[in-house]
Each structure stands twice: as C-alpha cells, then as structure tokens.
C-alpha cells in the first residue's frame, strides 16, 4: 500500500517539476535573454533606431491598419452571407475555408505571382498586360485574402453560438432580414469583430513572408527584421525591430483578452433546442454579401487552382500540358525534408499536447496557482510575433553557455513549445467537459494520481487531445516564423524550402511543395477524424447510459 503511493507521489512531483522547468527554460528564458542581451550589447540604441527607421514603422502600421479594415469587412461579409444559407450549403463552404488553415501562409502570395506576376498566367499570357503586382497594394490584398478565412470561421462559429430564439423573437416582432442583421446579428457579433480585427492587425504586423515575396521595394518592419538576420547577420537590429512589433501586439493582446471574455460570457438566458432558420433572401444585405462572397470564393478557387495547375503542368510552346516534371524536379530540393518535417510535426503535436494537458491538469483540476502562472507564460508565443520567439532562441541557446542552435533538437523544442499557447486553451475546453467528481471518485476508491491520469483524465479528454494534436501537427507543418533563423542548411523543413524557392523564382517547385503540405495535413486530419469516428461509436452507448 505504502510503496504504491510512494511511486505515484514521485511521478507526480517529477512531472510537476519537469513541466515548470521546461516552460521556464524554453519559453520564459528565451524572451528574457533577447530582452536583456539586446539592450546590453553594442549597437544602435532603441530611440535612435526608432527615429532612423520611422518610415518602416509607418509602412507597417499603414499595411496593418488597411489589412485590418479590409479583413474585418470581408470576414463580416462572409459571416452575414452565411445567415441566409441553409446548413446543407454552409457545410461545404465552411470546409473550403478550412482548407486555407492547412496551407502555408504565403501560398496566397505564391498564387498571386504566378497569376499576376511579370510572367503571370493571367496578366501576361491571357491579357498581355504589364502590371506591376509588387508593392503595398499587393501586400494588403494578399494578407486580406489569406487572413479572411480564419476570421470568417471565427465569426461564423460565433453566429452558431447565438441563441436562435433571439433571432426568432425579433422576426416574430416583425423584423425583416435587413433589420435582423442590423439590430441583432451585427451588435451581437461586435466582440467577435473586435477580436478578429485585433488578430488581423497583429498578424499583419508580424507577417514577413508576404512583404518579402511581393513587397518589392516597399519595406516594412517585419521583412526588414528578416533581412537583417538572413542577409546582414545583424541580430541586434532584428531584436530592435521585433521589440517595436511587440508593443502594439501586447496592447492588442490585452484588448483581446478583454473582448474574448465578453465574447464567451455574452451568451445569455436559457438555450432552446430550436434552430434558427436561414433568413429570407430579401433586402439589401443578401445581394451585396452574396456578390462579395462569390468574388471571395472565386479568388480562393483561383488561388488553389493555380497552385495545383502549376504543380502538375509544364508550358510547351505556350500550351500548358500535364506533366510530372515539376514533381520530379522538386525531388532534389526535398531530399529527406518531407520525412523530417512530418516527424517534427508528429513530435511537436504529440509532446506539445501532452505538456499542455498536464499543465491544465495541475492548473484546473488540482488548482495549482503556480501552474496558472506557468500556463500564462506558455501563452507568450501566441501573443508575440513568431520571429521574436525564434530570435529569442538564437540569443538564448547560442551564447557562451549553449551551442544548441546547431542541433535539430532545438528546432523540435521550439515548435513543440510554440504549441503550448494554443494547446492549453484547447485542453482547458476539453477538461471543462469532465465532471470533477470523477477525480474525487478515483481517490475515494483508493486510486492515486497515476490512476487519475490513466483512468479518468486522459481517457475522458481523448477527443480533445486528438484535436489538439491535429492542430499542433498542422501548425507545425505550416509554420515558418519562429524557426526560420534556427534552421541550418541540411535540416530544412518544407515551409522553409518552399519560402526559399519562392524567393528564387522557382514557382513550380514551390507549388509542388505547397500541394504536398496541404495533402499531408489533409491526410492527417482524415486519419484523426477517422479514428475518432470509430472510437466514438464504441463510446456512444457508455456515455449515454
């Protein structure tokens, strides 16, 4: 009896300490080192830098604000369009938006260049135009296009949370479609709109890929930070740039927390089981949102269509013909990379989820104050630009004490701990579904902490765990910002290879890689949902009784 308890106490304490140490070491410490070291080291001072590079800041803000406005407008348009649709139409259209979640962030820019660039399929081949796609307008357009999907999904998700009886009550009092949208839907979506605006603003500020690829001579802070490391090797300058980017990001984050809170507490009164009908297709909102939605979906189709065509065709005397050539050509760039990327993603997805669920176990079930703090530290990479996290790793693990940056293990650690921010959120939601008395029951019956994990915690959150893993896998497959400075030649992952070849103008190879990334993510999603579906059937009769 006693020995059994001793083992479980030991395991409990070990896990607790390991969690604390790893979060402090791999999240807090990198941020601290970049902060401390960059202010101590030689180089230009922060104030001088700001004065000198004010124009970069201006550009960044200009792009971020316009992108934010356009993104909010477009995602709100899509969400409103959905209000008119029956669920049988909503499902495929939502699924299509989800595809953008499984592709690397700069696919849009890649498609844009292949379509509208100097030798673009549309401008050059079809219309014989010379149109300069590079510059601020290109960045804004592409960021809007690629951020809108996620934001629309957030707003559409929020629409589904709205109490249908509220909408039905308004209609029963005589409100027609336009009035329902103006008086109910828009005001009720307001917190969501603010969250979406902030996310877009922060993402746009931190996005270095789009400006690098299609900014042309238009420079912004993020792309400048990237070039500072990659071409000039000037870590100090990169650090200053990232500090500048962090200030609005932090401000935005506090607003975000505030509004996300109101977003979840707004649901009010009792919920009914009635469904809200699609609104009648009358009034002004319907035709307007419908037109814009058609344009948006058209652009998405064009984007993925052109990537796919690029990946499987060659141009033969001005004629596109089907060919495996691009795929064959890409082999020399991808040598070993696919396997490496997938294994990184598997490890990061699994370990990241495990760490996150255990943190949540301590912070929620055991109500440990300290773990709450650890959880908060874990969310830093979510708030701050990815490149900042990567730069932090450079400062932290390549100094005089560490030389870890030459090892691929540091890349794996980086992508794993970057998951923790989102994964703890997902874990919290999953754990909230478990009745707390189950844990008490285990102890009541003589079980230990290990029994709690083995018999209650993990089995009961299995579905949430699988989804968290999937999310970690996908985001590792598509991430680039935090690892781009850490990767050495010979240990590249797919996104980085893709980014390289895009910059070298090898758009066909890039398209092949984009397709492969999307394919791998879709296969993994299919596997996870397939397994979940099978499991669920077995669980059904248990949870019903």
């Amino acid at each position, binding site marked *: 009896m006693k020995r059994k308890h001793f083992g479980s106490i030991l395991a409990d304490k070990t896990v607790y300490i390991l969690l604390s140490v790893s979060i402090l070491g791999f999240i807090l410490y990198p941020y601290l080192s970049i902060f401390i070291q960059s202010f101590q080291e030689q180089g230009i001072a922060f104030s001088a830098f700001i004065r000198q590079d004010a124009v970069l800041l201006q550009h960044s803000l200009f792009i971020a604000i316009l992108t934010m406005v356009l993104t909010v407008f477009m995602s709100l348009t899509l969400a409103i369009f959905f209000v008119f649709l029956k669920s049988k139409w909503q499902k495929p259209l939502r699924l299509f938006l989800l595809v953008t979640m499984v592709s690397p962030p700069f696919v849009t820019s890649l498609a844009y260049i292949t379509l509208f660039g100097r030798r673009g399929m549309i401008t050059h081949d079809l219309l014989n135009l010379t149109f300069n796609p590079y510059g601020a307008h290109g960045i804004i357009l592409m960021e809007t296009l690629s951020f809108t999907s996620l934001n629309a999904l957030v707003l559409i998700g929020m629409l589904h949370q709205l109490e249908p009886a509220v909408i039905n009550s308004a209609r029963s*009092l005589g*409100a027609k479609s336009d009035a329902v949208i103006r008086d109910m839907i828009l005001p*009720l979506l307001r917190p969501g709109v603010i969250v979406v605006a902030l996310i877009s603003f922060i993402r746009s500020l931190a996005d270095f890929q789009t400006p690098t690829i299609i900014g042309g001579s238009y420079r912004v802070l993020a792309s400048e930070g990237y070039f500072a490391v990659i071409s000039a090797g000037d870590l100090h300058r990169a650090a200053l740039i990232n500090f500048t980017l962090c200030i609005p990001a932090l401000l935005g984050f506090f607003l975000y927390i505030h509004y996300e809170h109101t977003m979840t507490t707004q649901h009010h009164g009792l919920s*009914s089981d009635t469904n809200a009908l699609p609104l009648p297709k009358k009034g002004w909102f319907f035709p307007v949102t419908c037109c814009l939605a058609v344009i948006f979906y058209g652009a998405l189709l064009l984007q993925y269509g052109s990537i796919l065509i690029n990946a499987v065709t060659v141009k033969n005397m001005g004629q596109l013909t089907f060919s495996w050539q691009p795929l064959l050509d890409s082999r020399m760039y991808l040598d070993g990379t696919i396997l490496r990327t997938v294994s990184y993603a598997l490890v990061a997805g699994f370990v990241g989820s495990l760490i996150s669920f255990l943190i949540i176990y301590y912070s929620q079930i055991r109500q440990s104050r300290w773990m709450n703090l650890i959880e908060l530290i874990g969310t830093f990479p979510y708030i701050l630009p990815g490149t900042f996290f990567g730069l932090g790793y450079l400062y932290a693990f390549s100094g005089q004490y560490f030389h870890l940056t030459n090892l691929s293990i540091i890349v794996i650690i980086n992508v794993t701990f970057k998951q923790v921010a989102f994964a703890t959120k997902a874990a919290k939601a999953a754990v909230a579904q478990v009745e707390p008395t189950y844990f008490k029951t285990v102890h009541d019956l003589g079980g230990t902490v290990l029994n709690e994990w083995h018999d209650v915690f993990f089995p009961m959150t299995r579905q949430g765990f699988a989804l968290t893993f999937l999310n970690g896998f996908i985001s590792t497959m598509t991430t680039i910002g935090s690892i781009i400075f850490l990767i050495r030649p010979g240990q590249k992952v797919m996104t980085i290879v893709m980014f390289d070849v895009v910059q070298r103008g090898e758009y066909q190879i890039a398209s092949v890689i984009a397709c492969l990334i999307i394919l791998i993510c879709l296969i993994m999603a299919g596997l996870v949902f397939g397994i979940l579906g099978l499991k669920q059937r077995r669980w059904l009769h248990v949870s019903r009784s």
Partner: protein
Amino acid sequence: MFLEVKDLTKVYQQKNVLHQLSFGVETGEMLVVLGPSGCGKSTLLSCLNGFTQVTSGTVRLLGQEITKAMPEDRDITTVFQSYSLFPHMNVLQNLMYGLKFQKIGKKAAKAKAIKMLQLLQMTEYQTARIQDLSGGQQQRIALGRSLIVAPKLLLLDEPFSNLDEKLRLSMRLELRRLQKELGITMVFVTHDQQEAFAIADRILVMDAGKIQQIATGAELYNQPKNKFVLTFIGEANQLANTAYVRPECIDLRLDTNGQGQIIQKIFQGATINYQVKLPTQTFWITRLNRGAAFEVGDLVTLTYQVQQMEGK
C-alpha cells in the same frame, strides 16, 4: 372564427409529427394546448408562427390564409420558452423593439413602453440591463415585448416552465389579468395540467400528434372522451370497457362484513388516499382529511356511481 386551422400535418423526415389537426380559436379566447413531452406542441406553435413549413393543411387568421407567410409578415408574436430577450439592449429598448416596424413615432413608442412597464409592475426597471433581471422579471419583459405590438394572436411556448412554483402561480394570474385587460387572443402551450386548468378558456389535449379532445377544463375532467384523456387528466379507477370512477367519487364506510380491505394509506395533507382491495380488483379512493381516518387492515364497503366515457 378568429384562427382556423384545418387538416394541419407536419412530417419531419418520414416522421409524422402532426396528424391532420383541425381546430379553431375564438376572438379573445385563451386556448391551452396540453400534452405530454414530445407530442408535437412546439411544432404546432411553429406552424402557426411560421418558423416551420407545414407539410399540408391550412392556417387562417381572420379569414385570411397565412399558411405560407413569412414569420415577420404575420400578425402573430411568440414568447419562447427561453426568454430570448435581446442581450445588447436594456429593458425599455427590448420593449420598444417591435414598435420599430409599426408606423409609430419614437416618443409614442416610448410612452407605450412605459405604460407596458406599469402594466407589468416593473416601472423602476426602465434602464436596467437584461442581465440584471431575475428569471421572473425577464419572463415578464419577454411577455411585455410581445404584448406591446398588440398582435392579433399571441403564442406562448411553456413560458413559465423555468420559474419556481410560487412565481409560476403568480405569473399565471398576471397573464390571465393582462389577457382580459388587453383582450388578446392567445394560444398557450404547457404540459402541466394545473396550469392549463388555471388559465384556459378551453383546453386542447394532444397526444402523438393527434387532437384527443378540445373542451373546457371541467368538461375534460367530467366527460373525458377517451382513455388517454381520462388517464392523462386526473386519476381514475378503470372498470370494464368504457366505465370508470374517479377516486373522489367513491364513498367509504367502515363495515366488518365489508368486501373491501384497506391495504395502503397515503397521507397527502388536505386529503388521504386509500388503496382498497376487493375480490375482483383494487381501487384508489381519495377522502378529505376530516373526521376519523381509516387504518390499514380495516374492512370497508364502497359505494359509487359508474361513469362512462365516449370511446376507448
């Protein structure tokens, strides 16, 4: 006829939820739809307010067919079971919302809303946030929001089922008072027979998507049309075929030569229920708690008059 429903049928994916319902509601009447859970009460209401498309049959309001009209185009408002007040508006704004769609100035609308608050006895809550109201207050505002637009017909779907017992009793009286004062025709859905008795002019008893009987409360109780109504409303001792006798209609007398023997006694406060065993069957009998009570084991004689229902 004010509201006339004819052969109303609703089929959900091969599941027949409503079977050819036909009934009418008179001007100013309060019709209560009573039935067990899942019998199709809510579905019936949403056929009336237009949130569900009917499979076949017609609905007429004041002679005009509205079967296919959009919910917002019908002169019908609904109070849903969840209070569904607009969370982003205060009490007054909630009350005034429906008036936006009538040709009434803002001032007049506000005056109306204030008058409605008086009627609801909630004047001090004009600018209160919805979140700060209690359940009962929210329900009253929801009621007021629907009443203020003076709909031709008001539908209520178990509006009081989320309130506690005491509040429910007082809300029933309040609703009845408002209905008489404003003269609005109402269809009220409930599964609680006490509630039905308390507020109905007539009661429509429904089971499995079919109308079992439409009558006043007393008629339902005293002349149930069939076995479902008999057992759903009140208690009954069933005899052969269509014969039955209500427990309170049986007289009980102590008799050492009696055929019956008391085998159970359940104290209820104002009344006492006895179970009496006779050679052929057992009876439930309800007596007022007055004078000497019987004890288990006592021998008794029963006297009663057999009653008959129309059909099985």
